[in-house]
């Protein structure tokens, strides 16, 4: 049972993540973009951050860099549909480079998500 901050600008993806992870007993907090997420991150404690990368108002790469600055030990999973903002970078590997612990490309199988989450959380619990 972990507290998970889920960040995606798309409501349906947030809902899907929430429903899936709640099945495994996790507690989900949602944020719409990087800016909102950073505010919540300052106010609360999270065991895991799952963030989309391409978002308005602070994208996922910036968010990961900021979070890692604030709390270098935070665990982060980046998810993305690929393509990148300008199509010039594939953002998932960048997310990994700037500190994401795992990456998942959309669309993914729900089991993949569950496995990744438990893998990332495993050492801590």
């Amino acid at each position, binding site marked *: 049972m972990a507290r998970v901050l889920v960040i995606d600008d798309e409501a349906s993806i947030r809902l899907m993540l929430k429903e899936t992870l709640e099945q495994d007993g996790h507690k989900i907090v949602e944020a719409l973009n990087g800016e909102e997420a950073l505010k919540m991150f300052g106010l609360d404690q999270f065991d895991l951050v799952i963030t989309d990368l*391409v978002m308005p108002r602070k994208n996922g790469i910036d968010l990961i860099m900021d979070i890692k600055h604030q709390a270098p030990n935070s665990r982060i999973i980046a998810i993305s549909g690929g393509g990148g903002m300008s199509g010039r970078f594939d953002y998932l590997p960048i997310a990994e480079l700037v500190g994401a612990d795992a990456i998942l490309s959309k669309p993914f199988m729900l089991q993949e998500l569950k496995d990744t989450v438990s893998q990332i959380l495993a050492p801590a619990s």
Partner: protein
Amino acid sequence: MPFNNQPTQHKQVGDTPVLVASSPTALAVSDPSLAGQFLLDRQGRILEASGKICQLLGYDCDELCRFDLRSLYLDPQLLDDAGLFRAQRDTAETITSLNCQLRAKNGALLSVRLTLIADGGLVGGASGDQLLAVIHTVEDLSLALQDGQTLISHLLAWSRELQQANSYDDLLRLIQHEMRERVGYNHVWVYTYDNMYSDSIHILSIGGENKDMVKANFATIPVRGDRFLEEMVSTEVPLIIEDARTDPRTNKAIVEQLQNRTMIMIPLYFLGEKRGSLGIGTFGDAEGCRPPGKLQLDYIVGMTGHISAAIERIKFIEGMRDNQAKQLELEKKLQQSQKMQAIGQLTGGIAHDFNNILASILGFAELARASMGQSGGNAKLPVYLDEVLVAGRRARDLIAQMLAFSRGTNSEWSMINIDPIVSETVRLLRSSLPSSLELRTELAKNLPPVKSDIVKLNQIIMNLCINAKDASNSVGTVAIRTSRKVIEHGSLCISCGAPIHGDYVTLEVEDCGSGIPQDILQRIFDPFFTTKEVGKGTGMGLAMVHGIVHEHHGHILVDTQINRGTKFTLLFPVGSLDSAQLLSAKAQTAHVASAVATSTVLPRILVVDDEVTVARFLRELIQAHGYEVATETDSHEALAAFQSNPDDYQLLISDQTMPGISGVELCRQVKKIKADCPVILCTGDLGAIPDQEIEDIGIQAICSKPIDTRNLLQLVQQLTGTVPH
């Protein structure tokens, strides 16, 4: 010419003796071409008719007497123009000769020469008001064309017809018609050649019954060694072979086969240059040997001037048609490559959205599927949801393919020998293809390196081999060959239409499969074009091959035969001095230079990218390895910063596409300020900047996007001559 005893008088008309009888009815006919005569009044009405002309026209002689000559005459105006009927009765004898056609009772036209004689005193029995028309049938030009004026007017009329001819076929038809109707030969043909010394000649086209046989046997004929043809090509005057069977110059085997008899070859000149020969001839015993008379020959030579001009004109027209067709083809190819580019861009833009949408569709379908188990419900629902999942996954795979097409993830260009990559890829493939299919590799050994990307090379070999497998239903042999070829000129790339020439390393994949029908050959490189059933092929395979090969500045050739098989040949240009080699050479010097300057403080690097996130990311990345990094997002400001403190920076890393100053320009300016400052240019479009320019400016390295960070770090390390922390 024997005459009867009637009082007769000879009159010379042109070259032909004309028999004038005192009594028309008593006229003796001994000249076979003499058809009879009419006695006419001054108005042109027929008073008497005699001889076989009545029979030829299909009338009784009595019947004819009711006619006005003009009503039989094809062109009454011509008759009037002769001024005959307007002549005064006291005029001295008037003799006019006219070539014309008379209309028979059944409508047929009869070619005749009319000789009109008006002389009351001479024409026996006829008063001064009467005219005698002596009629000769005309079968042979030698009779018809005694009048130079007529010859010229015929030729002119015919040349006007020739101007309507827009193809060689039209032209041949017109020549053949004229030759048959006016000169009396049934067979014509035209040879064309480039000059008098050419080694072979071409039959343009050919008339007459032997057409097919001749065409099939001698479409292009070698000249050397054939006395007849050699003489024909070199002579400037008509070459006449009276009897091809006995003439020493002819090739007897051909004569035997074609049954040649008389052959007349007339040189065709255009603007003083000999461009071909007009051939006229007889074949077989039915036609026999018929050498031309002087007038026939004159007329034929008169024709050739017009024919030469017509050939040149048609050549020009056909050339234009050719060019137009080529132009159209080129435009089509251009559209095609634009389409591919558009798909690339589109994919980059929409793949992200599609993947998000699919994530929802698939995710919720899965959630629904999982909750089915708990709540029971309709037994069919899980089946339906499985379908949603299957379809969703297919869409996901398609987008993954499109993404791979639009830009190969992780492109790494280097100078490589393709042989080991080919054998490695084939080894990998072998395990995933049915054993009924033999994969045979024939590698060239010692190939020069080409500038290539291993992953992409892999992709294209896989795609071609999988297509080959599909085309041959997994049985037979697929040959994969490499070689080196110098292509001089001539071939066009099948997918981009560009002419190919140069030194290439080739990669061939040949199957013994179904072959590709001509009508779809032009479309196989189209994105999404597939003949495979739904779900089997996405139609992106060859589109990707096209894209990748052309990224290599290469080209594609396809040989295919229905039910025989298909051979795809990929051509990769043999590498010249390019940025990859440049990089290693320059990097080494940079290494030496900075080794001398040994510093404990790692150098300061200026990173310029208009995209904040990218600039920031690069800074994080490079800083994380111990370097000091300054970033600029405005290229003008970057230049200003560098200018004010050039010694603060030991390396410039710049994006290429930026508003304001472009990356190349920034590098150029920086080099002007500080020539020994190494620069790395990041670009998504490798081909856009010419190697020459890169070299001229002195850019040490090109980093292709998407950026491989390890590669970038390695470059930073090499160019600054440092070991990162």
